């Protein structure tokens, strides 16, 4: 009880005006027809509603859950029905709307099941803090910081400070609480002591509340020191009170926990007591109704969410006398733009002054650099310097002069002889600096994204260039290979006759094979492009996947065909006849013989593979009931035919006795085939196939695309004509 009181710099002594609201005892304001509960009445993230419109709720039932660590849940202050969850004007200086839960009360005030914890001394501290968190307790002094976050600090705490100073003029909510409910405060302190295990508990109050001091001292337990500090504004600021009671200064940008202190308001202590000992969540608070416009000023216990208009009726507010409606005190409060706004967990006062009582501020005059503001500043800042920097938007200088240590108490504005609204400048500058920080972070983010995009585009460009270079290189190599081959062929001359024949033939086929190579490379390009598209479609989950897959398959097939046709002539016709003949001839001469069908076996195995693959596809298509089954069937048949043909050739070769002779004969036969590219019979067979395919298409078109029918019909006619011509040639 004889704790030393330290001093704080600055401070002012405005008229207290606390008497008006202390004339009547504390009373219950009653249940309004509608309660409006904003989702973010605390500091931190807004709560998440967990009820739906039309749902019946009981008093104390959780209607919105906390959303993150620094957040608090919201409970129904009375029983009723959820009328709406919508945007409503809230008690904020901006006058903007915010999402609210609206409860249409039923007047029955029925509680839900509560689970009080009688023997909290045996419970784990973290369990109790969780209960406090779920009770939705947020600092009731003004800032609304979720109390459970303060209590869950992991820093060593040696001092618990309970704030009962209430230094702002007009407000007496905490004073009446301390006078009438001192035992409850002590019960709350006992729980807080158990949770934090501090060495000292200091309950600070001002010497202008003698009844409160007496009540506290009579009910205080031995371990609670009730410290009476001299009346001065703003002794009730958290940092100021800590300095007054402990002599420790909370570092700039730090928290009280950094100096081993946790500071809670007396009303918060009662809320903790109610939450643990009674199981009641935070659903009501004491609010002062004061100002000369109220005919019945006084303190009322109001349900959270009660509209201000309801309280104005309760206090019999005289609309004619009212100049403006203020939430909070005259120093730190703000003018309410709307009377429908509700009381929230931090609303400690509704001030309804007359024009004479709280006149509008006179016009500001020039700063005369008198320095009164610097004397009044409780945070030891230089308000006039901050003012000049704020006017010039010198953000860097403002930060250097610790603008963010300003608690916006208004002592500087109050003491300014030129009536400069200094705090408003600081608020605006703080907002500007915060916005500038956000913008800078956003700009940095945008820059990174821009640079990432530039890097990506460049990489893609480089990849493309590399691909182009690789293709050019490959083409060059192929060309070189071709010339080397031809040179080799010229050099090898064991069988002059074969070379002579082959040369004659090569001169005829070189060009065609070259063009075929071109075709192959083109097809390869298209195939890669198609595969890339397919991959991207797959990753994007496009619904065009089957079509793309089909396209890729078709291209792959075409490519395989083209390759076969380009390698066949170049190897089987140009190289094979000569080279193979030469080889075989050489072998024959060397007496080696045999193993001549190795090269022929290769195409067969390839064909067999393709055939199996095609069969698998066909089976898959059949089982999937695809409409491409006929085409696939045709492809399988064609492959089977090719395979048969290839096998026959090998058989013939194997059967032949004289390899050289056979090779030469084959080469001759092929050359003959090359010179007359297709025998008429072959041609007829092919034309018949094409015709059949065209007819099929025509049939499909008649079903699906009647507009293209004519074109298909023309195609079929042409093919028929050609077929007839070919048949005629054969006939001749």
């Amino acid at each position, binding site marked *: 009880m004889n704790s030393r009181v330290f001093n704080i710099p600055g401070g002012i002594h405005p008229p207290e005006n606390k008497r008006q609201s202390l004339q009547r005892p504390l009373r219950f304001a009653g249940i309004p027809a509608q309660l409006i509960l904003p989702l973010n009445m605390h500091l931190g993230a807004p709560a998440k509603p967990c009820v739906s419109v039309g749902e019946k709720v009981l008093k104390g039932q959780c209607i919105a859950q906390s959303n993150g660590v620094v957040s608090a849940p919201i409970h129904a202050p009375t029983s009723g029905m959820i009328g709406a969850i919508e945007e409503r004007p809230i008690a*904020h200086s901006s006058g*903007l709307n*915010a999402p609210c839960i609206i409860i249409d009360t039923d007047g029955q005030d029925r509680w839900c099941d509560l689970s009080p914890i009688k023997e909290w001394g045996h419970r784990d501290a973290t369990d109790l803090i969780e209960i406090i968190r779920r009770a939705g307790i947020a600092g009731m002094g003004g800032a609304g910081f979720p109390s459970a976050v303060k209590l869950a600090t992991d820093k060593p705490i040696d001092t618990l400070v309970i704030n009962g100073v209430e230094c702002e003029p007009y407000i007496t909510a905490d004073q009446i609480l301390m006078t009438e409910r001192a035992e409850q405060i002590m019960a709350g302190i006992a729980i807080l002591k158990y949770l934090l295990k501090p060495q000292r508990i200091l309950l600070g109050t001002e010497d202008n509340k003698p009844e409160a001091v007496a009540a506290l001292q009579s009910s205080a337990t031995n371990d609670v020191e009730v410290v009476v500090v001299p009346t001065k504004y703003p002794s009730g600021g958290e940092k100021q009170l800590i300095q007054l009671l402990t002599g420790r200064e909370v570092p700039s940008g730090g928290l009280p926990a950094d100096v081993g202190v946790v500071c809670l308001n007396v009303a918060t202590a009662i809320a903790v007591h109610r939450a643990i000992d009674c199981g009641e969540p935070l659903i009501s608070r004491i609010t002062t109704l004061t100002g000369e416009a109220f005919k019945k000023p006084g303190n009322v216990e109001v349900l959270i969410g009660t509209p201000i208009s309801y309280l104005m009726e309760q206090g019999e507010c005289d609309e004619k006398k009212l100049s403006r409606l203020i939430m909070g005190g005259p120093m730190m409060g703000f003018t309410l733009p709307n009377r429908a706004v509700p009381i929230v967990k931090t609303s400690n006062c509704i001030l309804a002054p007359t024009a004479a009582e709280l006149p509008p501020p006179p016009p500001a005059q020039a700063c005369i650099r008198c320095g009164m503001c610097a004397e009044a500043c409780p945070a030891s800042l230089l308000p006039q310097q901050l003012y000049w920097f704020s*006017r010039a938007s010198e953000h860097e200088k403002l930060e250097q002069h610790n603008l963010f240590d300003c608690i916006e108490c208004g002592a500087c504005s109050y003491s300014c002889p030129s009536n400069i609204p200094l705090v408003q400048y600081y608020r*605006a500058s703080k907002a500007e600096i*915060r916005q500038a920080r956000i913008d800078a972070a*956003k700009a940095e983010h*945008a820059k990174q994204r821009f640079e990432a995009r530039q890097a990506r585009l460049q990489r893609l460009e480089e990849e493309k260039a590399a691909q182009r270079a690789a293709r050019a290189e490959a083409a060059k190599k192929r060309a070189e290979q071709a010339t080397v081959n031809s040179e080799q062929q010229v050099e090898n001359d064991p069988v002059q006759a074969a070379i002579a024949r082959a040369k004659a033939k090569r001169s005829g086929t070189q060009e065609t094979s070259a063009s075929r190579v071109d075709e192959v490379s083109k097809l390869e390009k298209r195939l890669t492009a198609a595969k890339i598209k397919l991959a991207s479609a797959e990753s994007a989950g*496009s619904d065009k996947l089957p079509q793309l897959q089909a396209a890729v398959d078709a291209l792959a097939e075409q490519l395989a065909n083209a390759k076969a046709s380009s390698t066949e002539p170049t190897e089987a016709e140009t190289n094979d006849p000569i080279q193979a003949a030469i080889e075989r001839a050489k072998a024959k001469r060397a007496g080696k013989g045999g193993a001549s069908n190795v090269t022929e076996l290769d195409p067969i195995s390839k064909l067999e593979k393709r055939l199996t693959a095609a069969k698998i596809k066909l089976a898959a298509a059949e089982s999937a009931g695809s409409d491409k089954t006929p085409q696939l069937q045709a492809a399988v048949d064609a492959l089977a035919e090719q395979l048969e043909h290839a096998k026959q050739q090998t058989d013939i070769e194997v059967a032949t006795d004289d390899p050289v002779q056979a090779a030469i004969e084959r080469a001759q036969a092929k050359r003959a085939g090359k010179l007359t590219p297709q025998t008429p019979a072959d041609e007829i067979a092919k034309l018949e196939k094409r015709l059949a395919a065209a007819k099929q298409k025509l049939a499909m078109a008649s079903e699906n695309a009647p507009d293209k029918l004519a074109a298909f019909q023309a195609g079929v006619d042409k093919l028929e004509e050609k077929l007839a011509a070919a048949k005629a040639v054969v006939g001749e």
Partner: protein
Amino acid sequence: MIDFIFSNPLLAALIALVGLSLIFGAILGFASERFKTEGDPIADQICDLLPQTQCGQCGYPGCRPYAEAIADGERINRCPPGGEATIQALASLLDVEPLPLDEDVGEEKPKSYAFIREDECIGCTKCIQACPVDAILGSAKHMHTVITSECTGCDLCVEPCPVDCIDMIEVPVTLNNWQWQNPAKANDLIATDRGQS
């Protein structure tokens, strides 16, 4: 040694000076190589002040190129998204007179973001290619949409849209971005104005 200095004072002084200059030259040369700064530090500082919308309204393909151009003597009043604040910041950084915003490049507009009317989007991907910060999501023949939190409001996507389905919407004032306004700068009032407000 001392005899030499006394006997040839001129030569000794000359040798001493040449020796000193060689030593300092070597130190300076080493330092300039050792502590060489990569890139252009002034351009970096200028770039940090620009709003990074990458809108190209200044006539340069992005904020970085404009920063480099300013470092090379381009005028500082060609950034409409940055507006007056950016011009002031650049002026104080470069110690030049702040100029009014160049009217040819556009005017300072309130912050906005792009919004695609999704039912009208034909999926042409033109806006995706135009977006400098990859803030538009979508693929060919599928609806596109703007990631609002990433949009810088550069409006480069508006012009390429063939069906004009992109709107620039002003960022609305919410509780999160609402801010106190500076009080009216009424300090030029004289004493007789008292009570008139």
